[in-house]
């Protein structure tokens, strides 16, 4: 009888463990978006608004907190559209420093990995 109870308890424990719902509570990740203007232009400062739109939920995150050419955002894991518009200070190949208006965007970027998810976007100058 003791063996029966032992086997039964074991079956109950296995069934209970197997039945637990898979929970994924780690829902946030970090996205680092870097703007680039080609090899011959060095970006020293960015004054711009970065908008990240979650493709699935349509939630929009905005940040203007650029450090050098990059902005880092804490966001929900998922797929995003990115749109950045603003002004950039850059050093050109001829050594001149200029302030130029720019825009860059991406229709689809995945930010699902643990740690920092990097993406680089190429600038389109508007002037």
């Amino acid at each position, binding site marked *: 009888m003791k063996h029966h109870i032992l086997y039964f308890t074991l079956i109950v424990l296995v*069934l209970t463990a197997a039945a637990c719902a*898979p*929970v994924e509570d780690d829902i946030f990740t970090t996205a680092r978006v870097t703007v680039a203007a080609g090899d011959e232009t060095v970006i020293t400062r960015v004054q711009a608004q970065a908008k990240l739109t979650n493709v699935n939920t349509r939630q929009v995150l905005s940040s203007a907190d650029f450090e050098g050419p990059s902005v880092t955002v804490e966001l929900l*894991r*998922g797929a995003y559209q990115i749109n950045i518009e603003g002004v950039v200070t850059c050093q050109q190949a001829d050594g001149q420093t200029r302030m130029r208006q720019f825009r860059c965007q991406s229709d689809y970027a995945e930010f699902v990995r643990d740690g920092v998810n990097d993406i680089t976007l190429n600038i389109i100058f508007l002037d």
Partner: protein
Amino acid sequence: MKRLYLFIIIFMTFKIGATASNADSALVEHTSIDQLTMLEAMRNPALHGSGYRTPFSQLSLGIDLLRQSQAFVLEKGTGYTLPYIKVDTYHHLNDRSAVWGSASYMTGKQHNVKWNSTSDYDLLEPYVLADTAGGDTHRERYAISGGYATHIARWQLGAEMLVRAEQEYRDRDPRMRGIVTDLTMRLGGGYDCGNYRLGAAVEANIYKQTNSVAFYREEGVIPEYQMTGLGTEYSRFSGDKRSLYYDGGGLALLLHLSPADHNGIYGDISLDEHRYHRKLAEFNSMPLTDLYDEHVGGTIGWKRQTASNRKMASWAHVDYTRRTGNEHVGGTSDARYFPVIACLTMYKQHLFDAHTGFLYGKGKWSAMLKAGYRSSNEKYVYPRRQMDFSHVYGGLLGQCFLRPSGKLLLTMDAHASLYFKTDDKLSLPVANMSTPFIQLMQHKHEYASANYTDLGAKVRADLAWKQSRYGLFAEAGCSVTLCSTREHATLIHGSVGITF
């Protein structure tokens, strides 16, 4: 298909009826409120087989009507009109074996359903398809069940199967349609150990629903929302994505202990886990959401039955349910195929219910007193939304069997219960919500956290013929629920039929 079910009903009526007996004691045993203390044990088919001493069969034709002055739950509408025909039977084949079964057909209307285009709302909420228009829906349900139990020496063995096929549809835009197939199988065993009976059973369930919404008037098309909990929706696949299906099922484990002679301590434990996957039919079955429903329940009690037919029972019962919702994040599409790039747990609900009860019965009357506490904590993780509420409740249920004449037996039931709110909380990111969704959540919270008073009575008259196993019955009942929002609901039940 209808003809097949009707044939089954008629077949069962006469086949089983030919060998059944009709006795008052059978009616009392099968309809007494004492049986409420055995409900959980009856889920084990092995114990169901030895649950009754007397055979009892009944064919009934009835109607259930519910009218609410304002929908208490918008997704379930303001009421229903549901006529049905049903046959139930429980029969001993011999000293060791018993069979039981039921077959029913129900058809009718659900009135003013809003924010829900999916059948089985209680099972699948919050992951339903929804729109703001709604309207009446037609419902049609076929259900059959059957079980067999036997005992060999000190062992009892039993098996049971329950099948439900249901369709719900609307014949005006938005034309929702939900077609449900629900199959449950149970296998159980029992063992007589001294003065006690130990029972264990496993239950397996398979659930399917195909769900769609169509619009015939192109100018009247409105968005269908893939709801994801507490007034949120899966925006990317809302709007014109109106064809989906649910694929689900689950397992349950039931343990039971009861005294063989109805005197002593009894108890049961149940562990249930069900999961329902919502998939988009038009995008290669892309999984949208998974709902996990985990439940643990336990009862410990004591009962006593004397030779003079005096019954007493006292018990404490606890239920805890955790409902977890995972959302699948769709990647970029390729020929209508969306890869899943992540899965996030966004919805969580904790339900708790604890009550203690006392039952006393003497001869032909019984009374049950119940008092308890229940709470619900519901959360959407991001953007954070929360809705909590709790109630203390108490109820009194009474039943009396009267025999005004030799042929007539009256069964009278009355109940009164009160739910009093103790706590409530609603937290929403209102600035980021559109007005219809805010109104939906305010309505949901207002009625979930309201105070309720429920009063009701039911009378059943059974007319028996001498020297015959057949009898006639008629039953009528009414209950009124008063809500602290100054709204009310009236439930009317009526049925007639034969017993055999």
